[in-house]
Structures are given as structure tokens and as C-alpha cells.
């Protein structure tokens, strides 16, 4: 596979990888704990988007069974192409997990601020080195 082809066919994946690395870089490089949490959020969002892009079926509509007048009470037309609903459902759970993680991380950051008087990791490490 040459490069232009890889970029055109898989552009969504390249975008996701870029987003993911942005998140990971923020977690590693930033000293501020709140910014670390934001980086973690971006990182998680990239994974959630990965599932959502995977669910897309070319030419597919929303996965809602249309009403078919020919079969009243039946299961509707069978020739309709749907997007895959399962990954979306999974991501509802993953978003809940993400919210819980963020809430807990922020709560810990508040406690750290209370104990250390700072939200900066490097200052907290220096405080520990000084006070044991």
C-alpha cells in the first residue's frame, strides 16, 4: 500500500492515532494535574471515536427498523442497510466509565491541592523531597 492510498482509505484512523498521541503527550508532558486529566480525556475520546468509526457501514442509515406498509406488524423491509449499532451501545458504557474516571481524578486533584497547596506535579514532587 503506497502512502496516498493509505491516507485516503484510512484517514479516519490516522486522525484517531494523532488525537490519541496528543492526549498521551499531554498526560506525559504537562505538570499540571488538571491538564493531565484533560489529556487522559482526549486519549479516551480517541478510543471511543475508534469504535464509532468502526460501526459505520457505507451507505448505511440509522439502525431503526422502518415501517413497512406491506407487512403490518412485521419486521419491516429487509433490504435496508444499517450502520452497526453495537459499538455505539458499547461506547455508552465506555463514556460512563470515562466520566467516572474523570470525576475520581478531579476529586483526587482537589485532595492533592489541599495537602500540597499546589496542582503542579513538579512542585508536589519537590514538596515530598523536602518534607519526606
Amino acid at each position, binding site marked *: 500500500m503506497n502512502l496516498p492510498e493509505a491516507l485516503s482509505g484510512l484517514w479516519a484512523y490516522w486522525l484517531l492515532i494523532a488525537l490519541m498521541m496528543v492526549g498521551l503527550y499531554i498526560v506525559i508532558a504537562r505538570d499540571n494535574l488538571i491538564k493531565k486529566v484533560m489529556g487522559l480525556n482526549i*486519549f479516551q475520546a480517541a478510543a471511543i471515536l475508534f469504535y464509532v468509526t468502526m460501526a459505520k457501514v457505507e451507505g448505511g442509515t440509522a439502525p431503526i427498523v422502518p415501517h413497512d406498509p406491506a407487512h403490518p406488524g412485521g419486521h419491516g423491509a429487509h433490504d435496508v442497510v444499517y450502520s452497526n449499532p453495537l459499538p455505539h451501545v458499547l461506547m455508552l458504557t465506555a463514556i460512563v466509565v470515562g466520566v467516572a474516571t474523570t470525576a475520581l*481524578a478531579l476529586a483526587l486533584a482537589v485532595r*492533592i491541592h489541599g495537602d500540597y497547596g499546589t496542582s503542579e506535579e513538579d512542585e508536589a514532587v519537590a514538596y*515530598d523531597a523536602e518534607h519526606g
Partner: protein
Amino acid sequence: MIEKILVLEVVLPLLAAPVCVLVRHPRFCRLFSLGVVAACFAIAVALLVEVRGGGVISYQLGGWPPPLGIEYRISTVNAYLLALVTAMALVIFSFDSRGGPPRVPEQRRHLYYAVFLLCISGLLGITITGDAFNIFVFLEISSLSSYILVSLGGHRRAVMSAFYYLVMGTIGGVFFMLGVGLLYQETGTLNLRDIAARLEPSLHDRGTVLALALLVVGISIKLAVFPLHHWLPNAYSFAPPKVSAFLAATATKVSFYLLAMILFTIFGAPFVFEELRLQAVLLPLSLLAMFLASGAAIFQTDLRRLLAYSSVAQIGYMTLGLSTANATGLAGGLVHLFNHAVMKGGLFLVVACLLYRVGSVHLDALAGIGRRMPLTSAALVIGGLSLIGVPGTVGFVSKWYLVSGVLERGWTAAAVLILLSSLLALVYVGKVVEVVYFRKPAETQPIDHVREAPLGMLAPAWVLAAAAVFFGLTTNWTYGVAREAAELLLAGGI
């Protein structure tokens, strides 16, 4: 009958947690959670007895048959893990920590028990479920509650350690989720056995290999495989002592099960160990963990940090058993799950006893404590001997089978290195024993007022110390089950 009560294993602790939140009575919550864990243990033992010899129990949640519905599936492998986790939880819950964790006031202590129960529910869920995404959800339930538990330690740095643990754990969790997503993309299913059955034609796709890489790295973070272990020493040494004992005895064990299950059941030993040659990475990392982490343990001056670094080294032994990919070595790794849980759980409970009476587990503060707290110190020595692998203790059993498995593979050098690494354990355990029994207490830290730990603390610690000797002499139960589980895993079944 048994398949009807199987689901209670997860549901009981999950429902007991909100009950604790509603009742708000610390004494009641303590006894109630102990009762729930005891019930879980009884169910786990019943399940293990039922599936011994190759039986399988399947439960369809909501009556939806797999692969569409979520299936709970029990074989010897995860029944062994369920019994291990619930047994450890039972002993550690019966430990009377006299006032709970230092950071939690009396009127909030019911929440502490609720979080503990949620953590157990998550760990049991990971082990019991046969659905890949369900594992992710339970993984996050157990991880989130263990971050909370770690943050309750008395020291300021406990919260910081919990934050690091959260960041590392979340990255690991997201890696796991991505790996599951790629597997779903390859196979179109989330049921573990269904994935395994359908993966064969696309085994060599780049997506499958990437899924394997993401899953292995993600779980390795949660398992604290060297060099992804950085969160562990801080988390274990600043968490409340009872929490350290619980996490050391259960959380990493469940992650190990998850790794073994993914490698052997989903991808299969021939693909992972013959084609991709994962052991070329896993074996050196295991050996490095054994030497560097044991080496770091020697230089620690705080008993809890010393034990935490020793845990990283012991995880190295487990992954070493995994990388042999033969029945003896894998069984050695699996039996080491139980053996390490018994000795490290016991040692962390001893730490809790010392912390309660002495107020510090810095080695300087423990000088000469062997005379003041003879029973506690004796349990410490038994656990320490087991870490070294002295015959007659569980540590010897694990090392015996690990060395046999490694020799079966023809890795003589690795076998020699296992024995050499035991010498490092001898040094750090020897250092502690020397301080506790032979060093004179410092003038600045008189220990005349120190008394033996109360019975409610001493008894659970001694149960584990006695188990470390008992299962060191009687290996039929532990090694028998582990061997059966290892053979099942190598055959690709769960």
C-alpha cells in the same frame, strides 16, 4: 442448581455495596461485607468442586444464548481464580483493623466497605465472564475502586500515588478497550470462545497482531509487568495496610489470569509462542523484574516499600512461568498466584499489625521488635522464608515447578538465574530478620510500651502464615488444580 447460584458470585457483592451505603452503620457494614465475602467463597468452592476434572458450567445472563448474549462460563481455570480471590478476601476482611483507614472518619466508614465490595465484585466479574467487553467494564469497576482504596492511606503521598495509579490504570484500560475493538472488527463477535473460533482465518492480519499488542501492553500495565510497574511500589506502600494486603493478594492475580486467558485461549499458544515468539520479550522482562526489583528491595528502608518491590519481582516469576508455555512451567506460574497471594497477603497483614502497635514500619523503628511482638515477628519470618523459597514453604513449591518448566524448555541459563535471584530475596529478607531480632532498639525510639498485636489482627495474619507452611507441604490441592488449569489453557479451552 449450581448454575443458578453462579451469577450470585458477582451480584452479591455488587448489591451489597449500595446496601452498605444506605445502612451507614460501620459495625454492621463490616460484618455484613464479611458475610457476603464468605458466601462468595462458599459459591466459589462449590464451583471449583463441580468443574474439577474438566467440567464446564455456563450461565446465560437474561436468557440470551451466546454468542449474542453475555455468558458466564466456569472451568477449572477461572474457578481456581475465583476460589483464590474470595479466600484471600475472606481472610483479609476478617482482619480487624481497629478503626479502619486513617483518612476515613467514623461516620463515613460505611463507604469504605462499599468500595471494597465493589472492588471484589469487579475482580470476580473479570474472572467469571465470557464476554470481552464485559471484562473491560469489570476491569474498570475494580480499578476505579482500587484507586479510591489506595487514596485512603494516612500519608499525604497516598493521594498522589492513587493519582499516578489512576493515570497508568486508565491508559492500560483504554489499550485493553482498543484491543477488544480490533478483535471485534476482525471477528464480529465479543464472546471470548466465539472470537477464538473465528480468529483463525484472520490470525495473520495486521489488525489481529495490533490487537494482541494492545491487549498485552494494557494488561501488563494493570499486572505491573516490569518496566510498567512504576505505579505499584508507591500504591502498595502508601495505601491503608489492609488495602495493600488485599490488592497484593488479588488484583495482580486476576490481571495475570486475564493475560494468560487472552494469550492461550483467544490467540492460542502456537500463534503467540511459536510464530510471534512473545517469550523473546516476556522472558528477559521477567528476569529483569526478578533481579532489578529484588535489587531495589534490598535498598529499601521501609518494610512496606521493600515488600512492594518484592511483589514486582514475584510478578516476574509468574510471567516467567507464562513464557515457558509448557504445562509444568505454566502450572508453576499459576500455582505461584496462590502461593504469592498467601505469603504476600500474610506479610502485608503483619505490616498492618506492626503499624498498629509501633506506628511505623521504617526498619529503624522495628529494631528489636521480635522480643516485644514474638508472634507477629514469627509470622513475618515464615512469610519471608517463603519469599526466598525455603523447602517446606509455598515459595519452594512454586520455584520447583518453575525451574522444572524452564528446564523442560531447555533454558538452563534461566533456571540458574531463578536460583540466583532467590539469593537476592535471601538478602532482603535477611536484612529484615536481622533488624527485627538482633538489632538493639534505638535510644530515641523506645519500644518498651509495645505489646503483641490484638487477636483480631494476629489471627488472620497467622492463618495465612500457617497456609504458607501447610500448602508448602501438601501440594495436591494447589498444584493439582493449577496443573489441570494449565493443561486446559494450553489446549486452548476455558
